[in-house]
């Protein structure tokens, strides 16, 4: 079976401003794919198109899974999530006044027929023991790194087949960055999760990702396949920064 998420020539923007131009990409089942780009190049816009928060002006977003093709392009965000697309969004979007556990059970409360919420909760706590320790604490009182872990755990609670992760390392201390990126990588290797992760830090992402797309001014200017990246690393990084 060729399970995958595909973007076909997607363009999108805000009002009269076009941010994404004809972006095509795919993420195959079990892959961790990185979406690289500097500030303001359209990474979040692209991920928000997949999640239904931004409507493409042209092109299609398809989920081909289990022999079925679903067009996500016009669906509402919660329907997209319930279809099996988990979201770790920019800014995390936790509910700061709810406890850690309430944030998780909110996402686990909709029956989706893919595993039991109690099992997933146990798995989340196993993966992030600190969240179990702080489960009664308001989400807003967690440190940045812990909030990021909670955002990842919440996405897991929606029983996703595919996860969209937007710059999980932004604003975190270097040592925490490694923890968070490792956790994302673990989801792929240990759970077989399919992941599309936006990142600015080229070397960080390429170390864990099978493939990377480089987004510049809303266009994919480069696709990096596994194995080639180290040789070309410096050159790609310079392309990304617009120096080449």
């Amino acid at each position, binding site marked *: 079976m060729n399970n995958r998420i595909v973007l076909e020539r997607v363009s999108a923007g805000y009002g009269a401003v076009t941010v994404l131009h004809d972006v095509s990409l795919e993420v195959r089942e079990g892959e961790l794919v990185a979406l690289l780009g500097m500030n303001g190049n359209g990474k979040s816009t692209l991920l928000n198109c997949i999640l239904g*928060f931004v409507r493409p002006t042209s092109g299609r977003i398809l989920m081909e899974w289990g022999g079925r093709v679903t067009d996500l392009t016009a669906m509402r965000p919660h329907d997209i999530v319930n279809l099996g697309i988990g979201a770790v969004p920019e800014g995390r979007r936790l509910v700061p006044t709810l406890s850690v556990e*309430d944030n998780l059970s909110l996402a686990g409360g909709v029956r989706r027929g893919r595993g039991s919420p109690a099992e997933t909760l146990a798995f989340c706590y196993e993966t992030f023991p600190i969240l179990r320790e702080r489960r009664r604490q308001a989400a807003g009182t967690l440190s940045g790194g812990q909030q990021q872990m909670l955002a990842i755990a919440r996405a897991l609670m929606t029983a996703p087949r595919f996860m969209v992760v937007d710059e999980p390392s932004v604003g975190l201390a270097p040592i925490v960055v490694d923890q968070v990126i490792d956790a994302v990588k673990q989801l792929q290797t240990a759970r077989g999760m399919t992941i599309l992760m936006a990142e600015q830090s080229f070397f960080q992402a390429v170390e864990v990702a099978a493939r990377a797309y480089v987004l510049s001014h809303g266009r994919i200017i480069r696709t990096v396949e596994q194995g080639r990246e180290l040789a070309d690393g410096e050159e790609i990084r310079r392309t990304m920064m617009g120096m080449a």
Partner: protein
Amino acid sequence: MMLIDLAANALASGAALGSIYALLAMGLAITFGLLHVPNVAHPAIVVAGAYAVALANGYGADPLLAALLLTVPFYVLGLGFYTFYSRAFELRGRGNSLQSLTLFFGVALVIEIGLVIAFGTDLRSVSVPYVGQSLSVGFVTLPYRFLVPALVTPAVILALWLYLTRTHGGLALRAVAHDERALSISGIDPSSVKRHAFGLATALAVLAGAALIITGPVDPFTDRSLLGRVFAVVVLAGLGSIPGTLVAAVLIGVAEAFVTTFVSPSWAPGVAFAILLGTLGLRPSGLFGASR
């Protein structure tokens, strides 16, 4: 002795009055406090609820029992009302605009006029065996027509609190006030949560209506004298705080009773706003609102 006597009675009747204000404000604490929908029609819906209760009482039903049963049709009414509102305003990105405020004022007017046409402008009341009797403890005397409805509020607040903290729907309601996108990401439709919340608030209005009409007779324009006070309660409590609503309302009720007893009844209506202005000067987010 005389002074203590007066003060104790003012305290008791003020607390009972405040408890009833809290019930009147509870629906608004949800629609305005949590959903930020400026539902100025809420008191009119409460009065409509009072009329519905009076009608049922005419057939011999106990007002509180009738109100409990009426929560179901009122809930459905609220769903419909919110659906209309969100189609007309929110989905077009004009949720908190002046136009939406006008819509709610319009709805209040339509309810008032509807009640006048259906029932005339005469005062309406309910008959219950305990109206006219009082509970006397020491030198404090409290009429049952205040005491009984005042006791409904703690029960409603307890139920609401259990709902908000122990159920999935309640969590979603608390979340929608903060961040609709957080709900979408959790796989929950924010508009359906808001619709449900509006239904809940409308159902609470009929309970408040029963409390109101047990307390005293009601006419189609009673909502006008309630409007300022219930908004004052919700804002004083801090937007969205349910227990805060009770504290704020009791504070206002007791202060009004003291002003009525020791100063003059004609000053009482201003008390709510005096407290509100004084508090907001010191704590802009209200007594229990999250300070930002």
